[in-house]
């Protein structure tokens, strides 16, 4: 049995809409540094590969076309890159993967921010790139119109606006990677004899020209410890498999069955192959929402209570599993046969379910020989067995 990779998604008080009302939740603390450092410390004690930190450039809304005006759900959040940076010095091993919206931001700024996250975490930075189709988010920037309103359940893969937007994500990641490579690793020479601090032959203009932006380079920040921080993309379907396969190091897919898991793995692999990627294996993680308990009944009762508080059953974009850590371990191993390298788990209530993952699921997987018993690498790429990428600009 091969070893699984495990990530946990951090979002507010948890992913269930009523998570903040759980007696264990601390809903007044969601904007404090202590809240986030404690969560990530728990995840690190569980030897997890990484945490993702959700973000967005608008107030949380359950609608894509407009703010939902709800007052019964968590509203307000902190910048995820800054949250990851705040947590970095308090941890030593776990990967830190903030989300960032690339549609309204500058690749130059994000490139140096994530490079710096890699410095302050000594090689544990990643980034989850996300695009935004939300018109009300676009109005926070006032620079471009987004007239597209995705409808639930409609296949948007072929919509020209979606194709264009996803193409921009691919361009954006290309610029991030070129900027990370724009300094060769040994560019800083401090040569007292000639008075030169850097060797300008080892600094490179990236000269990217794309449909939505152009960037000259080089970066202002030297190449980060990992060479290139880990790029992660959430991919719900074929249009997004193209982005994940062409641009990401790790794809997170959202299957609802073993068959869908197999199709997703193949879909990402096909895109990766079509893009002729030569930078090592891509990894594909399955995304699952989890409610855990000591018994199946306890977990299902917890879910029922949360649903009752929310006033409706929890319906989300991924499969929801309510059960014991052992049952979850069975599911993870079962679907792994589809070629998934591991999972990102979305705890229903962070205060409760994250601990179930680290003290219940992890030991269970370890007993089965399916999860590490100690960190064997100190960088995020190292956790995935990925090499430090060669610099595309370095002379061979």
């Amino acid at each position: 049995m091969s070893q699984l990779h495990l990530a946990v998604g951090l979002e507010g008080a948890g992913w269930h809409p009523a998570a903040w009302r759980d007696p264990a939740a601390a809903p007044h603390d969601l904007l404090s540094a202590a809240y986030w450092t404690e969560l990530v410390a728990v995840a690190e004690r569980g030897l997890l590969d990484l945490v993702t930190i959700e973000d967005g450039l608008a107030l949380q809304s359950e609608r894509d076309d407009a703010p939902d005006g709800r007052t019964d759900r968590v509203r307000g959040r902190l910048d995820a890159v800054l949250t990851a940076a705040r947590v970095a010095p308090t941890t030593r091993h776990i990967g830190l993967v903030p989300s960032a919206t690339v549609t309204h931001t500058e690749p130059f700024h994000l490139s140096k921010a994530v490079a710096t996250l890699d410095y302050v975490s000594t090689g544990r930075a990643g980034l989850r790139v996300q695009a935004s189709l939300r018109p009300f988010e676009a109005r926070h920037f006032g620079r471009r119109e987004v007239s597209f309103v995705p409808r639930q359940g409609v296949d948007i893969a072929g919509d020209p606006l979606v194709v264009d937007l996803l193409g921009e994500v691919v361009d954006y990641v290309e610029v991030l990677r070129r900027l990370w490579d724009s300094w060769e690793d040994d560019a800083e020479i401090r040569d007292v004899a000639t008075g030169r601090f850097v060797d300008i032959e080892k600094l490179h203009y990236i000269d990217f020209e794309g449909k939505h932006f152009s960037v000259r380079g080089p970066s202002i920040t030297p190449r980060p410890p990992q060479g290139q921080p880990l790029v992660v993309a959430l991919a719900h379907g074929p249009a997004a498999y193209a982005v994940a396969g062409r641009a990401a190091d790790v794809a997170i897919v959202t299957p609802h069955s073993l068959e869908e898991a197999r199709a997703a793995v193949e879909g990402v692999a096909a895109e990766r192959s079509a893009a002729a990627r030569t930078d090592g294996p891509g990894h594909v993680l399955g995304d699952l929402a989890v409610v855990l308990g000591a018994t199946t009944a306890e977990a299902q009762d917890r879910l029922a209570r949360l649903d009752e508080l929310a006033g409706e059953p929890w319906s989300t974009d991924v499969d929801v599993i309510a059960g014991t850590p052992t049952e979850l371990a069975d599911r993870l191993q079962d679907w792994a046969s589809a070629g998934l390298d591991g999972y990102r788990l979305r705890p229903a209530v962070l205060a409760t379910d994250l601990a179930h993952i680290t003290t219940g699921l992890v030991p269970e997987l370890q007993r089965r020989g399916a999860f590490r018993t100690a960190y064997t690498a100190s960088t995020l790429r190292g956790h995935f067995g990925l090499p430090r990428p060669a610099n595309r600009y370095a002379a061979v």
Partner: protein
Amino acid sequence: MPKQIHLAAHFPGVNNTTVWSDPRGGSHIEFSSFVHFAQTAERAKFDFLFLAEGLRLREQAGKIYDLDVVGRPDTFTVLSALAAVTEQLGLTGTINSTFNEPYEVARQFASLDHLSAGRAAWNVVTSWDAFTGENFRRGGFLPQDQRYARAKEFLTTAFELFDSWKGDEIAADAGSGQFVSRPDVGAFSHEGPQFSISGQFNVPRSPQGRPVIFQAGDSEEGREFAASTADAIFSRHSEFEAGRAFYTDVKDRLATYGRSRDSLLILPAATFVLGDTDAEAQEIAHQVRLQQVSGQTAIRFLEQLWNRDLSAYDPDGPLPDIDPDTGDDHIAKGRASVRMNRDPVAVAREWRALATEKGLSIRELIIEVTGRQSFVGSPRTVADEIDRFVQADASDGFILVPHVTPGGLDGFADTVVPLLQEKGVYRTEYEGTTLREHLGLAALGNAVPVG
């Protein structure tokens, strides 16, 4: 009670005053350097740590400038990480209002203020040049004369976003199920020539309400901007008489905006060299100047004013007798000094006269005309000088820029600070927890209007 001195620390950066060749010089990128520097500043009870900004590597004669330190980390990211290794030190970041958007910058500063429990500050700077713009989506889109207009409206807009949450919206009442008090929390709408944006801001009100605002420009427009809006000025007038003149000028402007004289702090950048005796410090200072201005650096400096290739000139010889090229295509790119030299021919004439009068070579002339150390002497002398400046209203304190990374502040913390504390002009413990409290600024009420 004597006036209390404010001190802050500027992480040495991308300029020829940072002596990277010093054997004590460490990394200017590795986080451990920032940790050492910040913890020293906090040990010395400084108000804050200050980071400058650069958005494109400088060039000269079409090549990346390689004689100075090159490269720096991202401001927001490194400040947020420093919040984890300090407890009270303020965290001031320089963020450009040209190549950013208000919604994103406001949420980054509000986040930093939350994550540091009220220690964030923003040094608002402007830019316009197409050279830097080549790294950004919209390129060099801003005409030079609009840069302050954009900066002002940027700040106004950011304040509207900071003030869009009043601070009492989060109920988080698990019993009733009400998380926020109103559906339109964070609602804002801004219509102006630079920004037309509307919606809901998604970071609730931060501990300080908004970051402390710094302003760095020295022009007439910059001074008015600061008097109307800033909490502190990062000025370049660290000489006594110039400092007093600037101090008086800016503080006199405050009344126009209905502000008291202590609502805006004047904090010049200052460099220092310490020795066991004054004579030893003077000798060290001379050696440091020689390290800061090598022969090559002197020629490159001269080229920035002359706007010509002067590489054939001997740095130990006389100044060129040709005049500066006054064309628009500057030989040096990404440098503020180029824009500040509005009449290079006149400056060149002055420099030539000075060199002739004192018999100075190119290198000696550049050492003479570029900033020498602000404070040189024994710890006692430096402590007395700093106190003299502050008591005489030449400043409210200083932002110290050491010439070695990251340990350049250590000696100051160990020797000068205790002397200032003995004199009763400097705190021995932090009295508050937020940067506004360290600076003695009034707490903000809700929704402060912008002048």
